[in-house]
Structure formats: structure tokens, C-alpha cells
């Protein structure tokens, strides 16, 4: 049987406000446990929530970026369930009247095709605290610093059909929210968390199969793994004569294993009802327009601009324009060195490889944009060869100093016009009389092949520092002459 997977995503995006959505507590990460939990965050009786304007504004900015309908009026509701990291016994969320309705996100897939994923809605809600299961001798520790951090939950339509499409969607949303500066995008800190709904159906079938939900994936890689596994699992279940059960699953990225967390409760088990502590939120058209005029450049527009302004290939433009930090780094390098093509090659090549291997964000790159620009300049002005440039990059990465310092201290300057290079070329010719005789006797075609031997010898003698163009010129003169 030929199966088609159907995938929908729910993405929790932490909004980067200074204070919480309903209280004046700080949202800064890394504070002492429970030092940023006010009486309201703790669910103390007698406290009342007051909505953070900036959380609303950031949600509206997202709505504008994805071409969605901004609700002029939205309503907070209580989602009731018991869990120790949810002190009030309910999460303040939205259901029937969310702040954002519809919208769409376009994806550029790796095979070069484009795809549009529709969004169902996005709603504002508060984050819960954290349950810590280690180090409390059989008890669970509760840290409520995160309780009340504003979230916007983005719910897609089930428009994706492979793990690759789902990951492309997740990356694009990441690029959009970081470009909008409504989320810091730090996945390792849980700033974006993905719930993945997966079902399968025979290809060509219109009705949806029973879906499962895998919760709380916090990296693109884990998400991809989890979706692959879940599609395989469902196919095995169905082809083995069984039925997929609607359930919530947990995926462990370390082991690559998923397991049942709970059989899905019905939605109304949360007994949503409008929160009596909060009035309906009214968003004025004028406020929406003010935010619209203040929209930053978004990934798609930036991609187009990079291709045009810098003459980059579609592929390079796509890689460089997605993340705001990468785009900023690229533009800083180009501003310094003026060579967009080289900047793109370095950033998408050497730099990307090193950052990925070390799981380092480009903002924290040991080689900053000024240093990379300097390396590119030093190749352009003939100070070093492009091969040596990789060594300089590596040394800078290891913290040996600025490119010029590394070139100086390691003696990497290319020999070009000096008599030194000519002396080495003469020496190589003198040391290899048989090869020289052979070369001079050979026809032009053979000569071309043999020429490389002499170049290699000169490079060996100079430790790779000879300017290749100079070497070719000198050798040509002396061998042919």
C-alpha cells in the first residue's frame, strides 16, 4: 500500500517581552528559581491579571507578517487542568475567539519547489512553570519563573506531508518570528517548542486518518526524527492489521524512542470558559496600522533583495536571508570587504560547517564579521592564498588573534614579487635536471601535465605561501625560456 502522511504543527513561540503577560514579573532567563514569580504568577487569591500591551502588539505583528486576520476583539479563556507547575489550576489561553485567524506561510523546499502552508489560527496564552525531576530525592521541584511568560501558539492546517516539509515550515516560522523580533528564537532554552500531529492515509484518500500528537519537541532535528519514526510506526500498525489510537506521545531525542504519554482527553475535558478576570481585548484599527507601518524586512523580501542587490544565486540568497542574525552577519561582511560572492561562500561553507559542528549561533561565532571580511580582503589583495586563508580562519576560530596578527605571527604572507620566490624557482629547476630535460623534450600536451610537478615542488619549498600566479609565471619563463 502506498501511504501518505498528513502533518499539522502546533508551535509555542515565547514572546520576548520584558515582563510577563499578566504580571509585572521579569521574564529574564537564568534567574534563581522562583525569584521571578509574583503573587499573581503563584495563583494567590485576590490577585488580578493585567494584560501586557507588548504581548498583544507582538501577536499582531506576527499576524501582519503571515497575512492573517487580526481579530478586532478577542477573548481569554480558562483551560482547566491540574499540574503542579500550573499554580492557578488553569492556563489562561484563548479558544473560541483567538487574536489571529488564518494566514499562511510559504516554504522553499530543498528540491527547489515552493509550497504554501495555511494556518488555522494563533492564540495568546501564558506559559507554565517548570517541573524538575532530578536532584530532589524522589520529589519533584517546581520553579515558577517561567509561569506567565507570554506565548503565542501557532496552529497550522494539516497541509504538510513529510518530515522535510514540517521542518521547512518550522524553520520558516523561526525565521519570521526572529526577523520580527518577537521571539529570541533560542531553541535550547525552549523559546520555540513544537507539537506534531501525524496521521496516515492511503494515497489519494480524502478523509483523514486517526492522528497522534507528539509533544514538546525543541529542535528541528528531533522533530524530523520524531515524525519519521511516527509515520513508520503508524504504517506498521495499520499494515499489521491494527488501528492507530488517538494519543499523546513523548519523544526522547537522546534515545530516538517515543512512547505513549496519555490517551487523548477530549477537548472539552479542559472545560474552557471565558476568564471572568479579564475583559474582552479590543484592538483598534489605528493601532494595527501603526504596527503595520513599522514592520521590519521579512525573510522572503530579504531573500529577493539579496539575490538582486548582491547578485547571489537563489540558493545562497535563501541560506543567508532566513535568519536575521545570519543576514546581518553577511551584510556586515559585505560592507567591510565588498565581495558578496566570497562572503556568501565563506558563510555558507566554512563558517556554517564550524557553527553547526559546535552548535554555536552565528552571533557567538569566534570569527566575527570584521575578521571574516579581513580574511577575504587579504586573499583579494594577494597577501595570502585562498588555501592559506582556510588556515587563517582556523587559527582565528581557535582564538589566536585577528587575521592580520595570525598572518604575521605564523609567517603566512604569500611570497609574490620578491626575489626570494625567484630563488626558490631556480633552485627547484637546478635540483631536478632530469625532469627539466624531460619537460623540454615533451610535446605541449605532456608539458601541461608535467608543469604541475614543478608547481608542487615550489609550493612544498615555500610551505604553500607562494602566490600561485607568480609561480606559474616564473616557472613558465624559466622552463620554456
Amino acid at each position, binding site marked *: 500500500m502506498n501511504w501518505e502522511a498528513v502533518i499539522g504543527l502546533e508551535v509555542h513561540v515565547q514572546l520576548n*517581552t*520584558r*515582563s510577563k503577560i499578566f*504580571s*509585572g*514579573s*521579569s521574564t529574564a532567563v537564568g534567574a*534563581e*528559581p*522562583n*525569584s*521571578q*514569580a*509574583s*503573587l499573581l504568577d*503563584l495563583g494567590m487569591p485576590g490577585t488580578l491579571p*493585567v*494584560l*501586557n*500591551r*507588548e*504581548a*498583544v502588539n507582538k501577536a499582531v505583528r506576527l499576524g501582519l507578517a503571515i497575512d492573517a486576520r487580526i481579530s478586532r476583539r478577542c*477573548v481569554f479563556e480558562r483551560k*482547566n487542568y*491540574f*499540574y*503542579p507547575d500550573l499554580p492557578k489550576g488553569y492556563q489562561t489561553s484563548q479558544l473560541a*475567539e483567538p487574536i489571529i485567524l488564518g494566514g499562511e506561510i510559504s516554504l522553499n523546499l530543498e528540491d527547489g519547489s515552493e509550497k504554501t502552508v495555511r494556518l488555522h489560527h494563533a492564540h495568546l496564552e501564558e506559559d507554565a512553570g517548570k*517541573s*524538575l*525531576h532530578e*536532584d*530532589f530525592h*524522589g*520529589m*519533584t*521541584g*517546581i*520553579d*515558577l519563573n517561567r509561569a506567565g511568560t507570554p506565548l503565542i501558539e501557532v496552529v497550522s492546517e494539516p497541509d504538510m506531508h513529510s518530515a522535510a516539509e514540517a521542518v521547512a515550515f518550522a524553520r520558516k516560522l523561526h525565521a519570521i518570528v526572529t526577523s520580527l523580533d518577537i521571539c529570541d528564537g533560542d531553541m535550547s532554552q525552549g523559546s520555540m517548542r513544537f507539537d506534531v500531529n501525524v496521521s496516515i492515509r492511503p494515497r489519494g484518500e480524502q478523509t483523514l486518518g486517526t492522528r497522534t500528537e507528539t509533544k514538546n519537541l525543541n529542535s528541528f532535528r528531533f522533530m524530523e526524527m520524531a515524525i519519521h519514526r511516527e509515520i513508520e510506526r503508524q504504517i506498521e500498525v495499520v499494515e499489521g492489521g491494527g488501528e492507530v489510537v488517538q494519543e499523546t506521545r*513523548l519523544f526522547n531525542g537522546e534515545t530516538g524512542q517515543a512512547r505513549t*504519554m*496519555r490517551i487523548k482527553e477530549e477537548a472539552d*475535558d479542559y*472545560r474552557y470558559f*471565558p476568564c*471572568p478576570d*479579564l*475583559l*474582552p*481585548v*479590543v484592538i483598534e484599527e489605528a493601532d494595527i496600522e501603526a504596527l503595520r507601518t513599522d514592520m521590519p524586512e521579512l525573510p522572503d523580501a530579504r531573500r529577493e533583495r539579496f539575490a538582486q542587490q548582491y547578485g547571489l544565486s537563489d540558493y545562497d540568497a535563501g541560506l543567508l536571508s532566513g535568519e536575521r542574525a545570519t543576514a546581518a552577519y553577511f551584510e556586515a561582511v559585505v560592507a567591510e570587504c565588498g565581495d558578496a560572492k566570497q562572503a556568501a561562500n565563506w558563510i555558507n561553507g566554512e563558517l556554517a560547517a564550524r557553527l553547526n559542528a559546535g552548535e554555536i549561533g552565528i552571533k557567538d561565532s569566534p570569527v566575527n564579521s570584521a575578521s571574516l571580511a579581513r580574511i577575504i580582503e587579504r586573499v583579494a589583495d594577494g597577501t595570502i592564498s585562498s588555501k592559506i586563508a582556510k588556515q587563517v580562519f582556523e587559527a582565528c576560530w581557535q582564538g589566536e588573534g585577528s587575521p592580520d596578527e595570525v598572518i604575521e605571527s605564523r609567517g603566512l604572507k604569500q611570497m609574490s614579487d620578491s626575489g626570494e620566490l625567484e630563488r626558490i624557482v631556480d633552485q627547484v629547476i637546478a635540483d631536478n635536471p632530469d625532469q627539466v630535460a624531460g619537460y623540454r623534450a615533451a610535446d605541449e600536451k605532456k608539458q601541461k601535465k608535467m608543469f604541475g610537478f614543478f608547481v608542487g615542488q615550489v609550493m612544498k619549498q615555500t610551505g604553500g605561501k607562494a602566490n600561485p600566479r607568480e609561480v606559474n609565471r616564473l616557472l613558465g619563463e624559466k622552463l620554456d625560456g
Partner: protein
Amino acid sequence: MALDRETVAQVAQLARLRLDETESAAVTDRLNEILGMVDELQQAEVADVEPMAHPLELAQPLRADEVTESDRRDDVMGLAPAEEGGCYLVPRVVE
């Protein structure tokens, strides 16, 4: 519409309320009385009425995004039955 005992037991479970047989019977009767009133309300003609999320004709005031709260942990943590390392302790919960 009338609630049966099973539904009441399920709602009680969701609300973490422990009801014995007598309480459960009494609560079922009272809830059904309330639902009877709701049934009566359902008769009202509401085709032209917007659903109401709040009885007041007001909009939610918004506050500026400023940190106004200071650390109250020491005041509050003393109220907890168990704490360690700045965390509140609860019986182990693992999903």
C-alpha cells in the same frame, strides 16, 4: 437535559473532588436543577444577540511592558510544606 451519576463522577474527577454516594446523589440533583434553569434560558430568542464574554461593556485595559515586581520568594516560600534549593517540592510527578 439531565446529568446522570456517571457524568457527575467524571466531572468530579476532573475537578479532583471526592464525592461519596450521598454527596454524589445530592450534587447530581442540584446540578440538574441548575441545568433546568439553563434549559429555560435556552428557550429565549437569541438569534440577533452577540455571544457575551463578559457582562460589562468594557474593553481590557493594557499595561506597559515594564518589570514592576520584585523578588518575593522568601516571603512566600515559608508557606510551602516543602522546599529545597529555591524550588517548591511536590510528590514526584512524571508523565
